[in-house]
């Protein structure tokens, strides 16, 4: 070993020896929804630019965003936003030093999942009024 003295440090966790729990899945979903919104954000900016430029360009961008695939992407992005927002509040709550007990973490995860689904449906209902 080139570096025998590793310092008086804790070992990093060996992720592969653990069973993935749903709280772990929720954790990586925070990053995945963030990255997904980067893609959706670029599409939305392009749509706004097209609306500002003129009717012909807007027709193209609006067709892309409101096609079948476009609807899937936008509804997916809406859920990603709702999830990231709810889980972000959960993260801010953790940052303030609360909610680290295992039962609390499991419960807040379920609350985040429920609220993100409900918010998505609510916005879709409002949008189609």
């Amino acid at each position, binding site marked *: 070993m080139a570096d025998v003295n590793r310092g*008086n*440090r804790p070992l990093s966790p060996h992720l592969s020896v653990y069973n993935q729990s749903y709280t772990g899945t929720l954790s990586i979903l925070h990053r995945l929804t963030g990255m997904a919104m980067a893609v959706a*954000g670029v599409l939305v900016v392009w749509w*706004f630019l097209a609306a*500002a430029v003129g009717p012909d360009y807007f027709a193209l961008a609006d067709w892309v*965003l409101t096609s079948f695939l476009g609807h899937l992407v936008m509804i997916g992005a809406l859920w990603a*936003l709702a999830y990231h927002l709810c889980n972000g509040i959960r993260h801010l709550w953790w940052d303030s030093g609360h909610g680290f007990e295992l039962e609390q973490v499991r419960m807040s995860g379920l609350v985040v999942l429920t609220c993100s689904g409900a918010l998505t449906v609510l916005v879709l209902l409002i*949008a189609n009024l």
Partner: protein
Amino acid sequence: MSFRTDRARVAGLGVARDGVGHWWAQRVTAVALVPLAVLFVIPFARALGAGREAVLATYAHPFNAIVAMLFIGTAFYHLKLGLQVIIEDYVHAKAPRAAALVANALGAWLFGLTGVFAVARIAIGQ
């Protein structure tokens, strides 16, 4: 208790000194984005698919336009901070890491400012 290895101490590796600023900026923008996201999404979802005239009318309203510009600007700043952490965590080779970090920073400014410009142009008129 020191967590640093002898090698890191000799090489002079340590904190980059701006980590706390990055951490705080991510939290502050996160708090700002909670109300902004809600206020942005509802008029946007109603305007999407309603035709260009409806989009222009929606964002001719100063409240909708200001919320949209604040949301797009803050969201892309928050996005830049978040993607930067993801790149730093997963991209280890020196050249791809540097390229990804620069592309992330420039892309966030490009799309953030373009979005703000587009909404402003709709709000102010052609």
